[in-house]
């Protein structure tokens, strides 16, 4: 019986050999890959023991780590936020079980593990100094952000606002309202409460965790008429004086009325493109869209940044931006309504700010970005963002004509005089979007200033404001623009 016992011993040795090989594979070769798996929720809590770099807005640390351990104890870093509610949609929060915003997307730089910091890390290892995360400096202008935020706070309504420097694409303001204070959800001394607070935010009907500026799509309403007008000028060679039928109502399945004073654009006669933009005529723009055709209108929208739905085409700033939609329509009725930013057209506030910025920057849409530069603990630059062209939305002459027409919107006879800044020409476009249900309309304003030398382009949307873009959204947009140009 000894032979089979010996063979059984060898077999048990093989079993142990298999276990040892597999353990070597997991702990020796696969360890890095497993640690980097997105299912690893530990990477957040683990790194509480390492100092994390600050996030900087306007020269001030708006997110930073502070050692809260008693003297002599191993370090424990608590993440702190200044002006949490104001900046959280951008900066995000770094919790023990997850992260959002810049805290998430720039995590490897903030915690110092990024390859771009490898040389510095190596130096720290040799000199024995404690490794520190990098400083991430943002493009946000505190005055612009504050102006937008206060607008929503005073109004008491939900919504979002984005401000871009049209010549670079730098995002100067990204407001999402309501917001939350990141300090409420990051406590490491009372983790249970932090988790409970976060859980409460998750179920709140107003969705404070949602970054409306980047990740919520709204029907853009009449602000989309800028895209339709661009398409008419680019594809049909239309000019400011080109006319289009502008009946008081247009039959599109069911009648489309005008929202202009008296329900008319030009007394029922054909209306010029310039006047249609100035007073926001619905019927002429529906006809323009039908004339341009569904495919061309959709392609024009794509040139502004719409329809980038494929994973590799998606815009990141560096947070992922929800793609805006303007699909090609075959049906005349649907296409007509798409021309005034209804039916299947949906856009994020950032996308509409890019539309305004494209017009402002002679037709070139710059790639929007939030991170201006990343610096080492010793302030030497690790990365510096260089502006780049995202897309060519139109010719320079079209942009120039559109600017002139949009300036008339903020004039005394336009639909958005509340967007005007005294002494400065402001180009704008109002929008009031039907939402289909019982809820009130979304109220939009997009624009840029100064019209002749644009320094800031904005888009503001009031969620279910129930008023008009000119009355509710334009004042907020004006305040944000004033923060830059005055």
């Amino acid at each position, binding site marked *: *019986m000894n032979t089979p*016992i010996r063979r059984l011993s060898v077999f*048990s040795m093989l079993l*142990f050999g298999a276990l040892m090989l597999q353990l070597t594979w997991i702990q020796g070769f696969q360890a890095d890959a497993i640690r980097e*798996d997105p*299912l690893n929720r530990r990477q957040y809590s683990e790194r509480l023991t390492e100092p994390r770099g600050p996030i900087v807005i306007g020269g001030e640390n708006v997110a930073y780590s502070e050692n809260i351990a008693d003297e002599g*104890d*191993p370090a424990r870093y608590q993440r702190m936020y200044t002006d949490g509610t104001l900046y959280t949609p951008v900066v995000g929060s770094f919790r023990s079980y997850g992260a959002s915003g810049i805290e998430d997307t720039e995590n490897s730089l903030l915690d110092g593990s990024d390859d771009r910091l490898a040389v510095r890390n190596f130096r720290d290892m040799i000199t024995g100094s404690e490794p520190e995360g990098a400083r991430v400096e943002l493009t946000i202008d505190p005055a612009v952000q504050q102006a937008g935020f206060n607008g929503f706070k005073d109004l008491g309504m939900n919504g979002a606002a984005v401000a871009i420097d049209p010549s670079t694409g730098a995002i100067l303001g990204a407001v999402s309202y309501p917001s939350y204070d990141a300090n409420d959800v990051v406590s490491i001394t009372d983790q249970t409460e932090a988790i409970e607070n976060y859980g409460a935010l998750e179920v709140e009907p107003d969705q404070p965790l949602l970054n409306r500026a980047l990740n919520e799509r709204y029907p853009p309403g009449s602000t989309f008429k800028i895209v339709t007008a661009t398409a008419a000028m680019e594809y049909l060679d239309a000019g400011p004086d080109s006319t289009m039928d502008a009946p008081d109502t247009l039959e599109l399945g069911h009648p489309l009325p005008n929202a202009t004073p008296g329900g008319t654009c030009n007394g029922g006669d054909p209306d010029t493109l310039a006047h249609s933009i100035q007073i926001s005529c619905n019927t002429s723009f529906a006809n323009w869209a039908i004339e341009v055709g569904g495919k061309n209108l959709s392609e024009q929208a794509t040139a502004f940044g719409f329809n980038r739905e494929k994973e590799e085409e998606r815009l990141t700033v560096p947070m992922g931006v929800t793609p805006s939609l303007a699909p090609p329509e075959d049906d005349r009725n649907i296409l007509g309504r798409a021309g005034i930013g209804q039916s299947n057209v949906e856009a994020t506030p950032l996308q509409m700010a890019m539309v305004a910025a494209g017009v402002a920057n002679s037709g070139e849409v710059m790639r929007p970005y939030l991170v201006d530069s990343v610096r080492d603990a010793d302030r030497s630059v690790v990365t510096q963002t260089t502006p780049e062209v995202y897309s060519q939305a139109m010719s320079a002459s079209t942009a120039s004509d559109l600017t002139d027409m949009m300036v008339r919107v903020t004039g005394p006879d336009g639909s958005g005089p509340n967007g005007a800044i005294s002494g400065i020409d402001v180009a704008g476009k109002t929008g009031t979007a039907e939402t289909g249900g019982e809820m009130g309309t979304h109220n939009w304003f997009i624009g840029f200033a100064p019209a002749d030398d644009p320094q800031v382009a904005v888009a503001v949307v009031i969620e279910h404001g129930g008023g008009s873009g000119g009355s509710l959204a334009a004042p907020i947009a004006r305040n944000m623009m004033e923060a830059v140009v005055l």
Partner: protein
Amino acid sequence: MSTTAPEAPTALPPVKRRNAELVLVGLTILITMGAIAIAGLNLNNQIPGAMWGYGLIFGALALATHVALRFIAPYADPLILPCALFLNGVGVAMIWRLDAAESGEIEHAGIGMQLVWTAVGMIFCIALLFFLKEPRVLQRYTYISALVAIILIALPMVPGLGINEYGARRWIGFGGFTMQPSEFAKIALVIFLSSYLVTKRQVLSLAAKSIKVGRFKILDLPRARDFMPMVVGWVIAIGLLVITKDLGTSLLLFGTFLAMLYVATQRSSWVIIGLTVFIGAAALAMQIFWHFRQRVDIWFNAFDPEVYERLGGSEQLVKGLIGMAYGGLFGTGFGGGQAHHIFAADSDFIFASLAEDLGLTGVMVILIVVFLLVQRGMRVALASRELFIKMLASGIAFVMCFQVFVVLGGLTRIIPLTGMTTPFLAAGGSALMASWLMIGLLLRMSDNARRPAPQAIQDEGATQVIRR
């Protein structure tokens, strides 16, 4: 088979080496206390009182067992006890460290109860050594052992007594006290198989019907009537396990069954038939039972976020793997890891906890010690002269080996993860007592195998008076 053969080539020299054992036992005590001390330093920056309190209790228990061996089993293999103590001590230290780390949401077993069960296990072991001088008497209880095994496996299914938890009926509970009878069932089954197979081995290995293709023999099939008692016993055992949904124990017992059958008959046809039947049954179970499908899904698609998020999904397994990944080659240090955030980190997942804190280096050491223990068991089997003892020793050694493989193979995704305890390391009274009973049997058998051959006390005459 002859009991009169003076020296089989595999026999072990009659050397006691109890002092070598004492040194090794002392080492295991130092390792246990050191592990608790390091864990305390890592967790709270101070050497914990537990190092002295619990460490010395463990040390006293270990030394008492060693001293008992000197008297009741002086020729026992000197490596078996230190190996068992090392595993038990590391387990105790790990349980203290998991309990001491504030995990918040997950409760872990306390070191106190684990030490109580260690003591009970050691007492069982010593009592067995004391009362069972000749393990061959167990051979008389062939069918009683079978009955005991089946009753133990069936107990969790008794209404009001069985407890269904974590997807398997593995526990029974009475008066706020729970135990896992299948831990003892495996010992009863090994005893049953040893005695049954020894009586039937000639028939099972010789009488056969050859299956031929042309002139080539493919397989020797046993006769149906030799097969029947075995089939009946195993259909009952495996059937019960399918009902209790305890896949791990099912796999463990069936694997042991095949191994012992092979040792008895030395015929691979049994193993091939058995494996085919088991794989067939497993495939069938997968079709029928959602529970087993889920297990296989977790095995193959552990890192699929959907499987991870599912209730009873791969979250625990993935957390264990991530812990091992953090452990890397050298570990995070005893107490330095985050294993206490994993569910069952002290029982079914204790190996993952150890892998994180001690790294690949540390678990290799632990595996080698387990392997050493298994090989000493096999050595006892080789050195023994009686067939029943050979079967019993190799059976017990293989049960320990295969149990570690089923647990650790599950944790490392060699096989599907099944709930089972690691011998000696995991928290749990039943597992510890069963493990110490198995060590008792091995010690007793090795003591008998190594004891010097009886000396004749008178030189002449037809009848010799011998002293054992």
